């Protein structure tokens, strides 16, 4: 009984995670500049991966796999924002942004970028 429920909840998680991954991909394609794209590449993508992992965990249910899945989740959470920041920073520094789409830019007001 519980196994059946876990299977179905796991399946729902897999579908939801896949849909979020799809939305993230559409966002990366459609958003106008790199900075907006990194939003799509972090938030829905991370949650999508977490849901996929949860779904896999609910269907596999073995201790060996749970440890591995936990590790993947932890590293996903720890590394995705860092990767997004590096790409965003590179995009900003090389001027690949659409200033017409910006309401404010306090980083430019800071003055010459000396310190990092």
């Amino acid at each position, binding site marked *: 009984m519980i196994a059946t429920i876990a299977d179905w909840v796991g399946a729902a998680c897999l579908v939801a995670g896949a849909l979020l991954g799809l939305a993230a991909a559409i966002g990366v394609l459609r958003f106008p500049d790199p900075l907006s794209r990194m*939003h799509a590449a972090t938030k829905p993508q991370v949650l999508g991966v977490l849901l996929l992992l949860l779904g896999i965990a609910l269907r596999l249910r073995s201790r060996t796999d749970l440890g591995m899945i936990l590790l993947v989740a932890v590293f996903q959470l720890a590394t995705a924002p860092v990767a997004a920041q590096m790409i*965003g*920073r590179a995009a900003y520094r090389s001027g690949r942004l659409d200033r017409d789409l*910006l*309401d404010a830019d306090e980083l430019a007001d800071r003055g010459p970028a000396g310190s990092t």
Partner: protein
Amino acid sequence: MTGPRPAAPDGDAERAAPRRGRLGRWRDQALALGWLVVVWNLLWGEVSWANLAGGLLVGGGVLLFFPLPAVTFAGRLRVRALVVFAVRFGVELVSASLHVARIAVQPGYRPRGAIIGVRLRVRTDLNLALTAEAVSLVPGTLILEVDRDSGTLYLHVLDTHGSAQLSIVRERTLAVERRVVRAVGSDAELRLVETDPVEKGTLP
């Protein structure tokens, strides 16, 4: 920048960090080694003596050959605040994901953005890193640049509608910082965050 900076004695003292001494460094190293051993065992999928020994060997090698600047942990873990942080983080991650997913598939919609600087009140490396990570995954914001000396995070805000919303984002970022400090900060840092409701974190 004129006037006195907001006091953050802990931040400066810790960054210099010679006075914490050998014992604190050994404790930090031991914690790092313990974490690496746990990771090693999880990777192999089972806890056994061979894996513990292998983990110690590999972890020791990693710490020896890839030394990192020490991240000093001066505070203490508060379990309740940690749970509050985790739950709020989960809720915000879900709402952020749905928000971005929605504007991603909305036909003909071009989101506007803004880049703002938010000055954090606690300027330790640990707080900067944790807050930056958490802020990247909560609604609407993404870290662009970290100014470590002044403890300022520069954020890209997606889908803005005017400047009123920007101050909301500032306050939300500072709220994230408050939850981080409540969970892992020291008592002095906690006072700094709690007794400073006026400071909106705006740049001069």
